[in-house]
C-alpha cells in the first residue's frame, strides 16, 4: 500500500475484492501468506526484542580506524564485522538489528495511537449519526485532504524531532482508516435487535458502544491495524531519510539509507541492506494483513 493514504473508496473495494468462489488451493495460499508473513514478522520482532543479545557491538559505537569495512560476500572483509561498517566505522549488522526495534516500535506505537483516535471517532459517528456523524465525517475529509508527508515533516521540524513527537504526530495523522471502518461498521449494526435490547435493559451509550458494538468490529480493525502498520513503517523511513524523523545516531533504516547515500557510487551495499530489510518487513506485514483480511472476510460470509 502504500499509498500513504488510502481513500474511502479503496476501503470499500477491499471488502468486495474477495471473490465469492475460490478453488481449494487458493485458500491454502491465503493461509500460506499468513504463515510466511506472520513468520517473518515474528522473527523480526524476536530479533528486535533480543537486539542486545544478538549484536556484538553497540550500534552507535564509532571506530574511525575501521571505516567502510566490506560485508562478508566481498573480498577483503574484516571477519569481526560480518556485514561491514559504515562511514563512521559502526558495525552495520548491529545497526541493522537495532533498526528493527525502531521500525517495529514506531510502527506499533503509532498504530496504537491512531487506532484509539480513529476507532473512538468512528464509533461516535456511526452510533449517534446525525450532526455528530456530519462533524466527524467532515474531520475525516479534512484529514484526507492534507498532504500527509509534508504536514508530518513540518510538524516534526517545528516541534523538534524526538521519538515521542514522531509517534504523536504520525498517530494524529493516520487515524483516518480506523475512523472510516469503525463508522461504517457501526452504521451497519446499530439498528440490530441486540443493540435495541441492550438499550431497553438500560445500558448506557458508552457501554453499548464498548461492549456490544466494538467486539463486532474487532477483526476488521485488526486487519486495518496490520495494513496501517506497514504504511507507518514506510512513512517513518521516508521522514528519517529526509532527515526529519529519527535523529542520528539512532539506527533507523531510513536514516541509514540517507547516510549511505553519499557513498552510493562505491558502496551501494550500504543502502541496499537497510532498504532490503525495510522491503522484507513491510512485505511481511502486508502479507500477514492481506491473509488476515481474506480469512476474516470469508469467516464473516459463512
Amino acid at each position, binding site marked *: *500500500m*502504500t*499509498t*500513504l*493514504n*488510502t*481513500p*474511502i*473508496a*479503496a476501503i*470499500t*473495494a477491499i471488502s*468486495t*475484492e474477495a*471473490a465469492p468462489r*475460490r*478453488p481449494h488451493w*487458493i485458500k491454502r495460499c491465503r493461509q500460506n501468506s499468513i504463515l510466511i508473513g506472520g513468520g517473518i514478522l515474528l522473527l523480526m520482532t524476536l530479533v528486535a526484542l533480543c537486539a542486545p543479545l544478538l549484536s556484538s557491538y553497540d550500534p552507535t559505537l564509532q571506530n574511525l580506524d575501521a571505516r567502510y569495512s566490506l560485508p562478508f560476500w566481498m573480498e577483503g572483509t574484516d571477519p569481526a564485522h560480518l556485514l561491514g561498517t559504515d562511514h563512521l566505522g559502526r558495525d552495520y549488522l548491529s545497526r541493522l538489528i537495532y533498526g528493527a526495534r525502531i521500525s517495529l516500535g514506531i510502527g506499533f506505537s503509532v498504530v496504537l495511537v491512531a487506532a484509539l483516535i480513529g476507532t473512538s471517532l468512528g464509533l461516535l459517528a456511526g452510533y449517534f449519526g446525525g450532526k455528530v456523524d456530519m462533524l466527524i465525517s*467532515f474531520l475525516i*475529509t*479534512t484529514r*484526507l*485532504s*492534507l*498532504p500527509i*508527508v*509534508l*504536514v508530518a*515533516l*513540518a*510538524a516534526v*521540524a*517545528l*516541534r*523538534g524531532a524526538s521519538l515521542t513527537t514522531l509517534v504523536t504526530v504520525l498517530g494524529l495523522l493516520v487515524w483516518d482508516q480506523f475512523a472510516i471502518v469503525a463508522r461504517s461498521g457501526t452504521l451497519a449494526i446499530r439498528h440490530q435487535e441486540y443493540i435495541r435490547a441492550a438499550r431497553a435493559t438500560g445500558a448506557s451509550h458508552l457501554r453499548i458502544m464498548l461492549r456490544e458494538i466494538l467486539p463486532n468490529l474487532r477483526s476488521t480493525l485488526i486487519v486495518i491495524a496490520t495494513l496501517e502498520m*506497514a504504511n507507518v513503517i*514506510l512513512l517513518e*523511513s*521516508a521522514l528519517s*531519510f*529526509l*532527515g*526529519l524523523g529519527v535523529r542520528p545516531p539512532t539506527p533507523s533504516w*531510513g536514516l541509514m*539509507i540517507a547516510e549511505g*547515500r553519499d557513498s*552510493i*557510487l562505491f558502496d*551501494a551495499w550500504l*543502502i*541496499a541492506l537497510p*532498504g532490503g530489510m*525495510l*522491503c522484507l518487513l*513491510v*512485505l511481511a506485514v*502486508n*502479507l500477514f494483513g*492481506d491473509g488476515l483480511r481474506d480469512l476474516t472476510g470469508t469467516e464473516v460470509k459463512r
Partner: protein
Amino acid sequence: MLRFLLRRLLVALLVALAVSSISFSLAYLSGDPAIAIAGSGGSAQDAELVRQLYGFDRPIFVQYADWIFQALQGNLGTSYYFSMPVSQIIGERIPVTLILGTASFAVALLVALPLGILAALKPNGLLDRIALLIAVSGQAVPSFWLGLILIVIFGVWLNLVPISGADSWSGFILPVVVLSYYALPALMRLMRASMIDVLQANYVRTARSKGLGMPTVILRHALRNAVLPLVSVAAVQLGILLSGSIVIESVFALNGLGRLAWESLLRSDLAVVQGIILILSLVYVMLTTLADLINAWLDPRIREA
C-alpha cells in the same frame, strides 16, 4: 442534480477553509513562529523585529483573517529566505511537480487498467498472479530507496540516464518510473476487483447470451460500469502523486514543490511551507470534488441519494 452540486461544493468550501486554518496554525506548532524564523542563533531583539515585521504581534484571528484575505488575492506572503513573494517562488517550481505527477499518473493508469482487466478475466490465472506480484512488491518497496537503487543501476553502472536534475526530459524517466510504480497497486487492484464484480452482473450474462463476443462485452458493457469506482480513487491517487513526490524530488534533485518545501523546512522558511501545504490541499480538494461530480454525472444513482 443542482442540489447535489451545491451541497458538494459547500462541503468542498468548508474543507478548504479547515485545511487553510490548519496550514496557517502550523506556524504556531513551535510555540512562537518569530523565534522559529529568527533561528536558534537569533537574539530576543531579532525575534522582536521578526514579530513586528511579519505581524506576529497581532491577535491570532486577525492574522488568520488577513492571511486568508491575502491568499484569496493570490498573495501568500513573503519568503524570508528568498525575499520574494511566496506565490512567485511556488509558480516557478510548480511545473516540475505537475509534469512529474501527471506523467506518473498517466503511466500508472496505462499499465494498471489493462493489467487489472486482464487479471480479472482469469482470476488466479498466470497473468493474475504476475499482477498480484507486481502489486504486492510495489506496496512494500520504499520509493526513495527504489529511486536510489535505479540511479545506481541505470545511472552509474549502465550510464543510460542522468543521475540527477531535470535539464532534459530523460531526467524524468527514473522518477516517473518510481512514482508510477508507487501509484500502480491501488489502481490495479481496484480495477481488477471492480471488473470481477461487474463480470458477474446479469447484464453481462445477457450480453454474452445474445451471442456477443467477449471483447465487445468487456469494452461496451462491462468496462463502463467497472471504471465507476475507479474515478474517485484515481483522483485521490493523482492528488497523492502531486503532494507525495517530495521524497522522489529530493532523491532525484528535481526542483519541484516537494523539494522546495523540504528545503524551506530545513531553513525554517515558514511562509513557503504554509503556502505549499495550502496549495496542495486545495488541489486535492478540487480533484476529489471533481471526481464526485464526474461520478454523479456518470451514475444517476449517486445524485439521487
